[in-house]
């Protein structure tokens, strides 16, 4: 099989730039996604149904529709009225953060609810407030249980960022599409992209197992 390294070398500098952007988008989206997700997760655990309902809908919407469509809606429907015009970078951060928040929320909820209720009761009977019980007793135990699930979410998010090529955010997939167009060749661009994503996600999973052992 002929495989042309020369065109990969030609595209190497821009692929590198694309990789940096992918990392940037992923890190920011994971960060905002988790913060937002924590709030939504707590919201979904609210005792009253009418408090729970908006958070519940949020999760259902973002988990129940394809990210592909969410990116289009954010890019052409949400950003122009707010920002005045379309912008691929803003779309990237907003769409991925909102999407990741829905999944993070469920991870937080699962983690917190996995801690036995007796722990909370014990903490409160020791004279802790509800907040202190959450902060010092439940969350430290829950977070340990959330790490593997978060690892999953991070890795999925890194790969999902490839969908942003749809709105021309110049990340890895975008540049491999460009490579494809110039030479009308499939394997060089796609396998190169796959390899880069693999390196990214593999390093991430190594990093996560290191963190997990440290906990």
């Amino acid at each position, binding site marked *: 099989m002929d495989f042309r390294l020369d065109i990969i070398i030609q595209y190497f500098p821009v692929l590198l730039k694309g990789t940096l952007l992918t990392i940037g988008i992923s890190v920011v989206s994971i960060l905002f996604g988790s913060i937002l997700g924590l709030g939504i997760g707590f919201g979904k655990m609210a005792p009253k149904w009418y408090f729970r309902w908006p958070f519940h809908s949020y999760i259902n919407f973002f988990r129940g529709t394809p990210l592909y469509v969410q990116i289009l809606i954010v890019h052409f429907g949400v950003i122009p009225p707010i920002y005045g015009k379309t912008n691929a970078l803003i779309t990237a951060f907003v769409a991925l953060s909102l999407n990741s928040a829905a999944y993070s929320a469920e991870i937080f909820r699962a983690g917190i609810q996995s801690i036995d209720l007796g722990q909370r009761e014990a903490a409160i009977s020791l004279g802790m407030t509800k907040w202190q019980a959450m902060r010092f007793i439940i969350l430290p135990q829950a977070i340990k249980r959330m790490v593997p699930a978060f690892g999953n979410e991070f890795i999925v998010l890194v790969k999902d960022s490839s969908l942003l090529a749809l709105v021309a955010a*110049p990340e890895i997939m975008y540049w491999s599409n*460009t490579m494809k167009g110039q030479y009308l060749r499939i394997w060089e661009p796609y396998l190169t992209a796959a390899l880069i994503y693999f390196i990214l996600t593999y390093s991430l999973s190594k990093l996560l197992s290191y963190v997990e052992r440290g906990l």
Partner: protein
Amino acid sequence: MKKGWVMLALVSLMIVGIVGCGSNNDANSNKSAAVEKIKFASDASYAPMEYMDTDTIKGFDIDFIKAVMEEAGLSYEVTNTGWDTMLTSVKQGTEYQAGLSSVSITDERKETYDYSIPYFESTNMIMVKEGSDIKNALDLKDKKVAVQAATTADELMSGIMGIDNANLKRFDSNAVALMELNGGGADAVVADIAIVREYMKNNPKQNLVGIVDTENFGAEYYGILYPKGSELREKLDPAIQKVLENGKYAEIYKTWFGEEPNLDNLLKAE
């Protein structure tokens, strides 16, 4: 739990059934392939050149190949496979013997594929909103430009603006590139003239202006895509030549574009 097993059994039965039917169909199509039906792959998302009208493939290219295949006396079939599948399967040349999808002939692409003689002359056109100060291709240099990735528009603008210029935005399809112009994220769209005209015809209310710049955007030619060393190419080239010369081509051209083609350029190009 018991119900679960029943469901599982039913689902597996269905899958077996579907797979079974699938292989039956394969056997049938193998039989018809024995009559030597030439199969063309196409990415039918490029109106008016090739597009899907619900479940039928239509367009200029489709009418053109019909005339060519009648001339050559061969039976054929055009299938919408999407762009990537077309590229890989034509390169292999086993399932599809050729690609028909407004593919521009360029030197870089010739390194991997063979082309027929040129059958269509095209140029890229700039589309801007009314009142824009863009007058030609060089004005685009420091503007935001949207193109469809993997097209000659992409290549031309990469040449003018630099391949890693962040203001050159490559989209999945022309439709999304055109939406970017509406959304204000781009100052102009560059695409094949036929596509731009079709879009302006379909969206008369958007106050769009098309700019032709023959100086900076030279003519380009579409060819049928063949695998390297294709035998079909030698069979079809004379038929294409015939269709171009006997008036059939001009007739098809007129029904799709409402004007006479410039055949002199096309016949001179090679």
